[in-house]
């Protein structure tokens, strides 16, 4: 019993040691053929700026729909639309901020 409790506690602590993006996004996207980097570039192609893009992603995660998806119709038809996000506002903001910082173009071009 004690052993089981310890194992659950350790798993929980390990899970929360990861950031909001890794915790909530990476795991599911790993199974998809399109990488998060590619998806980021698709969003960039549509929204251009940081503010627009973050707002666009958040809106899609809250109200996922084929009509507003950045991905192609073929991709959506094959892999479907994700489920509506149940993350808190703060958790969602943190995840999107990390996503932007990780893949943004600013400061990377030489």
């Amino acid at each position, binding site marked *: 019993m004690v052993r089981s409790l310890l194992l659950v506690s350790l798993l929980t602590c390990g899970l929360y040691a990861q950031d909001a993006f890794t915790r909530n996004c990476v795991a599911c996207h790993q199974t998809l053929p399109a990488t998060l*980097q590619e998806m980021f*570039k698709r969003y*960039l*192609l*549509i*929204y*251009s*700026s*940081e*503010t*627009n*893009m973050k707002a666009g992603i958040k809106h899609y995660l809250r109200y996922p729909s084929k009509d507003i998806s950045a991905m192609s119709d073929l991709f959506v038809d094959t892999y479907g639309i994700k489920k509506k996000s149940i993350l808190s506002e703060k958790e969602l903001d943190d995840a999107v901020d990390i996503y932007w910082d990780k*893949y943004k*173009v*600013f400061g*990377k*071009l*030489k």
Partner: protein
Amino acid sequence: MLVSKNKAINSLLKSEKKSLFRFLTLYVAMIVFMILLLCAYYYQTQEKLMLSSQRATLFKYAFIHAKRLKVLHHFFDERVKYPRDPRFKSAIYDVEYKEIFSLLENKNIRFDKEIYIVDNHIHFLKSLDDYYLGTKYIVIEVLDDGIWREIIWKNIIGYGIIAFFVFLLFGLYLAKLFLKPMRDSIVLLDRFIKDTTHELNTPLSAILANIEMMDTDVMVEKNRSKLKRINIAAKTVSILYKDLTYLTLEQEKENHDEMIDLKALIKNRTEYFDILVQSKQLEYKLDLEEATMFVDKRKFTRVIDNLISNAIKYNKRAGLLIITLRPGELAIADTGIGIEENQIPFIFDRYIRFNQSEGGFGVGLSIVKKILDEYNIKIDIISKVNKGTKMVLKW
């Protein structure tokens, strides 16, 4: 006639000069403003022409750059080297005008204009529909060699100066037309006076000669005072006649300058005017020292006559006529009506009379000024309304 007409035209009245000056100032200001406006329009047009000739090239560069960005977007972030071109510098901005990457030398971007010049650089702005790498705006920059500007400035200065002088000549012609009616009336008046004066000579000489010849001792008192009044009237007309003769005929005669004794001349003239002085119950106050002057006696007599005549004419009844003579200075003062300060600059203009109560044509002081100017004699007018006027001659 032609000589006198030219003389009249050449000697502008002060009021005419003022009108001419005002007209020319306004006209010059207007043509300068108009030329500047045309220059500004020409400059802008030429600048637009130059930019439109550059526009096609810069558009081509922007198109090439957009294609390169598309490729880079596809391979990002395996490839991160921003595309460069020796023909131009470029920069990319997102939809919020935030710089994504820039190679520009001048980073003053005007997102409201497609093409413009900034500090010797030409910027061309292209807006993208697909935001490769988040790029909404591509800015293409090339160096502006400024040769077109040098050509424009040369044209502006060259043609501007030519246009200015052409307009100026036209303005002078207009001014001449503008003054012509005024001038014609003066010429007409001169001609009339000249003709009239000629007819006055014989009867006036006869009157004065006969008055001198009359034996007043045998006359009864009543007739003697009547003769005195005739004498005064005749002398007044005589002064006017001399002024008009001088103005129309004698001023063109050659000068006979000589050293004259001013004290003696003034005494002689005061005696001549004595009868006029008495008629107005004036009192002479003479303070005369010895003084001489190298001048044409005939002309300077006209000066003194006019100044004394005015001092009598505009004096109060039973006032004073003060004449002070010092070496290099002559002052003739009265205790009369005076002249208003704003009218003083115009009192030497011909046919200008500020007081209509006294007779005359308004030519006396014009003659005085002409003669004084000829001999470089300075005249100062000190006057107070209802106190009197003092004319001071300095040489």
